[in-house]
């Protein structure tokens, strides 16, 4: 047996695979660590949202209906993405209202006409 085979290839690869697997498992520990560390910030933000009666997160603001997505006018023009790219870029990535508010039965129904 040659000296080169004294360290088997599989040993080296097992080491690499073990390191990568440890890295993947390590992401779970890192996730738990980050969640613990940011818990206080999340609690403060939760209280702030309650205190100011906030309804939306500030992620994209290139159009008012995108800034307050949950409060937006369901029949405003140019908000039925993905065709809205020319008007507001984030709008192109927001789903059509049908998928967003299927369960939203709260749009005012027109009052029944009295006879």
């Amino acid at each position: 047996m040659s000296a080169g085979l004294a360290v088997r290839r599989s040993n080296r690869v097992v080491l690499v695979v073990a390191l990568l697997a440890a890295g993947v498992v390590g992401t779970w520990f890192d996730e738990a660590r980050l969640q613990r560390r940011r818990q206080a910030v999340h609690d403060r933000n939760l209280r702030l949202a309650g205190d100011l009666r906030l309804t939306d997160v500030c992620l994209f603001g290139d159009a008012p209906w995108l800034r307050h997505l949950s409060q937006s006018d369901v029949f405003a023009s140019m908000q039925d993405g993905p065709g809205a790219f020319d008007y507001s870029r984030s709008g192109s990535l927001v789903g059509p209202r049908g998928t967003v508010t299927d369960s939203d039965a709260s749009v005012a129904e027109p009052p029944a006409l009295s006879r």
Partner: protein
Amino acid sequence: MRRWLNRQRSLADVALASLGRRRTRTMALLVVYALVVSVVAAVMLYAQAVRREAGRVLAQSPAVIVQRLQAGRFALVPDTYAEALRAIRGVQSVEGRLWGYYYDPVLKVAVTVMVAPEGSAHVVQDGHARVGPAVARAKGLSAGGQLLLITTARDVLRLTVDELLPDESAVLTADLILISAADFRALFDHPAGFYTDIALSVANPAEHRRVAEKVTTRMPDTRAIVRDDIARTYAATFSWREGLVLVAFIGVLAAFALFAFDRASGLSADETREIAVLKAVGWDAGDVMAMKAWEGALVSAVAFAAGYLAAYLFVFYVPAGPFDGALRGWTVVRPRIRLTPDTDAFQVATLFVLSVVPYTAAILVPVWRAAVAEPDVVMRG
């Protein structure tokens, strides 16, 4: 057990030697494979983190928001509505909210101007303001500085900045300006006795929807938005975005699948000869297939692990990567948000299975065909 392990290690040794003989091809495959896994994993991790972040911080939003519609457009809500809403059973408290969009002609962007509700820790005195971190950054404001806003009557409203809202709250307050009710009404010429909308608090979460239904029944010109709808809106939005980004990426995925399948299912002349030699020295078809299964599993598992790790580091440790724009959208006053990972084990497991199993399986069919043939026939070609 020990014997079985030794056998598997020997098979892995032969598989690795085989891969080593085609080092350049194997490395190219590994890099492309890991890159494809990392893009899919990054989109998945990012969307999940943003979805959870939105759901988490909005868990204390008002139970029901009541808006008024007139001729199909939003209209201000008179305070008489508040009285009627108070009479609905289950409603604990009723608060009029004052908020709107102020178009800043310098920044060329609409920011959110809001009045903190009475009793809030963030109530602002007349002539003063509290400013969100992204607005403060964009306008170069600091505590004690002057914020100038142009009223609808084209007058200048001078406000002293009391304090900047903390950076850590950017996900909620990046573009927010908090001012007093009097300043709000002066800024927008907002009539007294009217609110932008009304927030209801309802003690029993199970009654939120019932209360909303009562509101729209009693006041047909209103629209009621329940807290659950808010959460669902964000969940649906980011699921949609995640899907859309992956759809945009589908061409690359298909090209890679074709490449990997072609690479895995078609044996080169060298590989066929190698199998024939192994058969000639006494290996049976089962051994050959186990060795090739090792080859496929090693390549795909290493690609998965490397790709997933790269995606994790990229999403949670590299600020503002390219997916930031694609998934989060665009805005002039951009919040600096540090995402907290919140992975879904099922999603990761699905990605692992989809990364490893098809490639390993695709390898086995041609190997089986070559392994069951007579070695001399295979060697002669």
